[in-house]
């Protein structure tokens, strides 16, 4: 059967300033095919799609639909040409039902009948094999259901060309395969589907052809059947990239943090963390998997002292056994108390007692580093504020999900951002900017941060560079525990692999690493163990070396599934 062209781009160019976002891009989309657009961040994928969807207007070039030139000035024009785009961020009214959202903004002759709409929606659901109850309110929906509403909304308006912008980023593996089934049915129905993604395995699984963009240029379009991951990456990045995360065996993994029966409620009384019990070990990467919003963020925030748990314990094991006692974070009084409890021994394993000694002699003895801890220190972290934890000498690094909203201050420069962790150091009321500046310059060099200099506000940096600044600072803090929530979100391949390498280096140094991730492939490749969460509960901990994506995916949705079945 001869394939018919649905959409053609001819020499489409878009300048942003002196920069080409898209340069002379030609693109053909046929009816009844799935075309994947592949490219790194900033390669112009989204700009190109926005031009088709009427959000931008091309500076040069033509867009042809069904062979005729089309002028698309607005999303409405795009709709009139049968083009619909499903954005990453959903635009739905929470209080409305699926059907009400779908019909919203359409203009129809005659009386508005919700029943007729429901029937029409049900017909679309039936035809393409969606799972959706048209009468369900949006606020009751999972992310996947909301996405379904967005897709049906576009189909309901009669779109023949659908553009999906990174639709799988928020879905579980099971939901992804359901989405792909739907996409295949739409394809059979003669629709053209353009999917933007940077996940190579998905490209290979679902698409018929792949268009690769790099720095705004159209590099190539290949048939999916005739290509593989390595070739695609090479075209995307411009050179060969090793896609393997090197994972070493944990060396001497000992418990570092015990979490036991942890329960956390939000200020509105919502049960966010439910009976979590697990151990974090040194020299090991513990992954945390789960659908976004299952309590991963709150878990890390509770460990660093930002939330007060209702019940449960968090215990930190400070590896001090046979290490010299210092006054670094302890007063003389505290040292004497500990000595009275027989907590120290000397180099010859004899018990240390300060009984009857003058303070000056005790100081001298301790400073000679001949007084050693008998056991590891056991410290209760629960109900301590971040400041108290620091004052105990416990270094917990935390790379939060919201980099500029929590980890860094956007309007400050690199130096002042380095200072966030260390500004209290030193006596006196004045700030010492010298050391933070040296640290900023070192991070700029070591992690090759792309910025005009350490005194540029970091708000002006790209996402990957902002993340390097944050991760660099947290590593420079020489932590015992390193926690990172979604550290590669929004980063390109090169930066992502750099972050994975940094996490691995931390692990090899014997630091306990906790990694909250969304890409299951990465979790399976990078971590040693994976803790799976679902709606605040722990559904299990699996060995990342032996488990499968499907197993983790099932665990992520276990309870959700059960309740789903109950409804049916």
């Amino acid at each position, binding site marked *: 059967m001869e394939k018919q062209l649905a959409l053609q781009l001819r020499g489409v160019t878009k300048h*942003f300033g002196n920069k080409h976002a898209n340069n002379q891009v030609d693109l053909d989309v046929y009816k009844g095919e799935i075309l994947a657009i592949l490219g790194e961040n900033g390669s112009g994928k989204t700009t190109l799609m926005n031009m088709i969807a009427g959000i931008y207007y091309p500076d040069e070039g033509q867009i042809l639909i069904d062979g005729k030139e089309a*002028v698309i000035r607005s999303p409405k024009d795009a709709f009139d040409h049968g083009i619909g785009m499903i954005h990453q961020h959903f635009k739905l009214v929470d209080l409305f039902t699926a059907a009400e959202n779908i019909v919203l903004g359409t203009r129809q002759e005659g009386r508005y009948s919700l029943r007729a709409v429901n029937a029409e929606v049900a017909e679309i659901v039936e035809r393409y094999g969606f799972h959706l109850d048209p009468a369900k309110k949006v606020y009751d929906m999972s992310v996947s259901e909301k996405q379904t509403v967005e897709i049906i909304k576009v189909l309901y308006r009669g779109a023949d060309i659908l553009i999906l912008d990174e639709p799988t980023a928020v879905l579980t593996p099971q939901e992804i395969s359901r989405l792909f089934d739907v996409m295949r049915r739409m394809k059979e129905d003669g629709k053209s589907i353009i999917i933007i993604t940077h996940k190579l395995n998905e490209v290979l699984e679902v698409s018929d052809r792949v268009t690769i963009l790099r720095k705004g240029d159209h590099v190539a379009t290949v048939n999916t059947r005739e290509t593989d991951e390595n070739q695609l990456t090479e075209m995307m990045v411009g050179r060969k990239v090793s896609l393997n995360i090197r994972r070493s065996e944990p060396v001497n993994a000992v418990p570092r943090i015990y979490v036991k029966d942890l329960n956390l409620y939000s200020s509105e009384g919502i049960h966010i963390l439910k009976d979590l019990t697990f151990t974090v070990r040194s020299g090991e990467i513990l992954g945390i998997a789960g659908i976004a919003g299952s309590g991963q963020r709150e878990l890390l925030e509770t460990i660093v002292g930002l939330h007060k748990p209702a019940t449960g314990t968090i215990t930190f094991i400070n590896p001090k056994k046979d290490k010299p006692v210092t006054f670094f974070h302890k007063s003389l009084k505290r040292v004497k108390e500990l000595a009275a409890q027989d907590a120290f021994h000397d180099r010859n394993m004899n018990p240390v007692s300060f009984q009857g000694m003058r303070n000056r002699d005790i100081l001298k003895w301790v400073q000679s580093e001949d007084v050693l801890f008998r056991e590891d220190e056991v410290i209760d972290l629960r109900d301590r504020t971040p400041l108290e934890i620091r004052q105990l000498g416990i270094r917990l690094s935390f790379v939060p999900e919201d980099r500029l909203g929590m980890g860094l*201050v956007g309007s400050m420069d690199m130096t002042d951002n380095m200072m966030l962790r260390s500004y209290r150091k030193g006596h006196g009321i004045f700030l010492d900017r010298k050391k933070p500046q040296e640290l900023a310059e070192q991070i700029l060099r070591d992690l090759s941060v792309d910025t005009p200099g350490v005194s540029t506000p970091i708000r002006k940096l790209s996402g990957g560079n902002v993340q390097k600044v944050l991760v660099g600072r947290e590593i420079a803090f020489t932590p015992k525990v390193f926690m990172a929530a979604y550290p590669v979100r929004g980063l390109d391949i090169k930066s992502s692999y750099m972050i994975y390498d940094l996490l691995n280096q931390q692990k090899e140094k014997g630091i306990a690493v906790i990694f909250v991730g969304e890409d299951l492939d990465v979790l399976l490749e990078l971590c040693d163990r994976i803790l799976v969460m679902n709606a605040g509960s722990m559904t299990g901990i699996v060995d990342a070396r032996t488990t499968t994506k499907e197993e983790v995916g099932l665990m992520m949705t276990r309870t959700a599934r059960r309740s789903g079945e109950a409804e049916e």
Partner: protein
Amino acid sequence: MNRRQTEEVREPLFHLTRRMGISPVKAWGIRAAAFVLGMLACGLIAFLLIERLRENPGRIGAFYYAFIKGSFSTSYKFWKFLKNVAILLCISLALTPAFRMRFWNIGGEGQTLVSVLGAIAVDFYFGGRIPEWLLLILMFAAALVSGAVWGVIPALFRAKWGTNETLFTLMMNYVATYLVSFFLVVWVPNGSSSLPRQQHGRLPTIGNDYLLIILIVLVLTIGLYIYLYYTKHGYEISVVGESVRTAQYVGIKVNRVIIRTMILSGMLCGLAGYLIAAGLDQTVTTESVGGQGFTGIMVSWLGGFNPLTMILTAGLVQFLNQGASQISQDFDVSGALPNVITGIMLFFIIGCEFFVNYKIHFRGSKKHAEAAAEMGRGIGK
């Protein structure tokens, strides 16, 4: 052909984009241009409104000269100008630490007024009964404490119950005004509610009548600049202002910083109140602060919350005020015209900040494509 057709319907008439960075020269160029344009607009309005100017257009030169005359023609006017700048600057400085923390304290008026009241109360009850130096110290303490109390109450409510500080500080202004009215009724038995100048508790003078006040404010300006930019407290204020979540993340006790900073803010208002009470007025009325608590908000904001820049903005605002009064005197127009003129000037000066922060790209201009560029740039390089 086709391309030509689409050209006509391409993009909107103009785009607005946020500037990612502007050179100081360019920014000050825009501000200077706004000042000149504002002056031209004032001339035009004056021409339409002042009969004498219409009859004799040649006097337009005198109209502009009046601005300069208002502040600089005699040494008396010049000293008055400097004194007024100092008091306005002092109140603006007091508000600045709170603003840098994004705590929208619009209660500078009330905080300063209760400080004047506190100082005068001490003067009223103890004046003449205790040594002069002790009286001055007690007045000073009373002013600082009253200002700090007035400042910390909204901060405590915000910290404990999350109340809105803008409404709260605004309402505290009214409480301060009526408190003054109340004490005037109590203190002035004849019912005129006009407290005569007190004979005691006057700040000593050095050189000129106003020199001491000016020097005190100058020292305060430099001190506050150092406090905000080079101390740990100042750093904490900036972090809390930028992101409360980041502050919590690094272990800053946000409520403590808010309360501490509002005590400081209130105490600096107290200093301004003390300078007004002991250095200038020697009495208190409901108009002792005369709206400078509100003008100070603008001075602080225009100065980008930087104490050093605020010297300029306070000077500018005062220059306009005195110039406008001079015009009403010279052209024998009373009432609203000076306010109209300062209003026009401030409209231009504040309005131009929009053009400092945003760029306009007209359709067809060569650079119009940059518009979308900068829109999309933000994070993506």
